[in-house]
């Protein structure tokens, strides 16, 4: 039970960050893809730099989880078509709906009920991928 409270709390923290940083804003995503403002690049850039440092420190100091097991990272299999084609399709949707999955959830919490339609469509897209995946280049 305590574990679920921790997931819920971390998620709540994430939702507040996404909202207060305006990363949930369609306008901020549009502005980012037009290279008109540093805002989103600052967010993602500083997140990645500190993320790299965090992961490196976790590996160097062999940090353990709260349950005492080592923190492990699973490397991803290299493929160009999978990530490039999949990524491009995702990018088309990201720039159109102005939200990636995290902000989709957070926008619903912000009271934009209509974003449930975006969520439902994203579920349909995921389902379609699952059905077609054996026929797609990976």
């Amino acid at each position, binding site marked *: 039970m305590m574990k679920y409270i921790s997931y819920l709390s971390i998620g*709540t923290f994430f939702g507040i960050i996404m909202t207060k940083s305006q990363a949930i804003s369609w*306008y901020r995503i549009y502005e980012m893809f037009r290279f008109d403002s540093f805002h989103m690049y600052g967010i993602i850039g500083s997140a990645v730099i500190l993320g790299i440092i965090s992961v490196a420190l976790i590996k160097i100091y062999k940090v353990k989880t709260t349950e005492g097991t080592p923190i492990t990272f699973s490397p991803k299999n290299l493929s160009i078509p999978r990530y*490039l084609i999949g990524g491009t*399709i995702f990018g088309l949707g990201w720039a159109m709906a102005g939200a990636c999955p995290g902000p989709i959830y957070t926008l619903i919490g912000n009271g934009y009920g209509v974003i449930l339609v975006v969520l439902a469509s994203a579920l349909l*897209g995921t389902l379609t991928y699952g059905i077609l995946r054996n026929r797609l280049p990976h």
Partner: protein
Amino acid sequence: MIEYLSQPWPWYVAGPLIPLVMALLLFVGKSFGVSDTLRTTCSIGGAGAFSDFFDFDWKKQIWNLVFVAGAIIGGFIASTWLQQPDPIPLAQDTVAKLQELGIQNPGDNYLPEEIFSWEGLFTLRGFIMMVIGGFLIGFGARYAGGCTSGHAISGLSNLQLPSLIAVIGFFIGGLIMTYFLLPVILSL
């Protein structure tokens, strides 16, 4: 304090907090990747009948649904108690371009409400941007094996080349949409 937190958070505050979210999840033995929840939800809904891609032990992924439930609550808390009084300080060029494309009052809300609203859903452009946009997000995220959180944050933090390729793809798609397709869609 509340007044202070209610201001828009600058990038140098919000950005560093994101890897903190990732690190906290790692400490509790989980990995940061929001779009996985879409697959899990499909699986719970019985999608295993259509594809073995959804035929897995989804109970092990419940934690992630709890995490995104938190993201919804976080959005509610921020909009209820930490709401900022002022419009989003967008770049002047962005505002001018959006007005040229017919968007009223850019930055007054998080979204252009003439498009992202129940009324907007029944317009051609609103339908395309929400329904097709959402579909591409779900399809592309699973095809690429992750979204912004899984690849741009978790993957790049772990120096994964596949994640860099995926992020380059995110930008190729985003730029094509922003420069070539959105001007057309917004005029519908």
